[in-house]
């Protein structure tokens, strides 16, 4: 019991990490909504537009899973930098899935906000 009290902050931190992880797939699909991007651009977009602290080693395997699921497709494009880049774009199935996930997210976050309103008003 004592050990539990001591690790309260720890529990909150872990919960936050879990929460962020759950959003990663949707965040990547959302980053691709406006057009094709390559891996590093997706990482930069996630860094600048959200405070999802993403480890780089996670995004690439996840992209290849999304591709295996048919939600994104990829193509190699030559660049001025001297090496080709692998660009990702949403497939029609990926656009459909992102829209559904976004709608679900909005409903969920709206109802959570209503529920949490009294907690955030205090202080």
């Amino acid at each position, binding site marked *: 019991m004592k050990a539990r009290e001591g690790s309260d902050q720890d529990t909150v931190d872990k919960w936050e990490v879990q929460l962020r992880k759950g959003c990663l797939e949707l965040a990547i699909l959302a980053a691709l909504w406006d057009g094709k991007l390559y891996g590093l651009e997706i990482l930069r977009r996630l860094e600048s537009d959200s405070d999802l602290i993403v480890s780089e080693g996670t995004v690439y395997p996840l992209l290849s*899973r999304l591709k*295996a699921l048919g939600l994104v497709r990829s193509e190699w494009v030559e660049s001025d*930098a001297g*090496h080709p*880049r*692998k660009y990702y774009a949403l497939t029609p199935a990926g656009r459909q899935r992102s829209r559904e996930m976004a709608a679900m997210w909005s409903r969920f976050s709206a109802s959570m906000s209503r529920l949490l309103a009294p907690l955030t008003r205090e202080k």
Partner: protein
Amino acid sequence: MTTAGNAQQKMEAYLGRLRQLLRGMNPEDAREVIEELRSHIREKASAGGECTAAGVDAALTALGTPEDLASQYTTDDLLARAEVSRSPVRILQSLFRWASLSVAGFVVLLTSIIGYFLGGALLWCAVLKVVHPRTAGLWVFPNGADTEISLRLGFGNPPAGGRELLGWWIVPAGLVVGCGMVILTTRFALWCARQYRKSLALPRG
């Protein structure tokens, strides 16, 4: 020149190790993974113009160890494949690869082998009961304090000193419990892969 050569060497050593660990993946996919990461490392390492050894070091650290990275590709591959086919053979194939990369994968592989084996044995027993009605089934052998229970497929003569427990009930029971174990094992393996994947997904904090 030496720093550029050094940087190049470090990157190739990392990618070479990763290529080794991805053996078993579809070769075309593995080649694409390596090319994509090479492109990523080069671009990150040469942010200030020249590709430096320090830049390559930082890029490699950010990617994590080749083992962690390969584990993530392997578990993601498993999860993606499982959406298409839940065949135990394909799941075990991926688990073998995962087991070669991490202790967690090894434990999941062992548990899954036991689960599939028991499930398969029950299914076989149910089917073979029809062929060997007198000998197949769940048998008990009273042997003092340690009574032995054994699932017999019914090849050979009826065992001496044993008593059959379920009779024909082994057919429905074997089919239901056997199928259940196979399904549960698949779900367990996928659940572990998902949990493991999540645990590696973000750095702590």
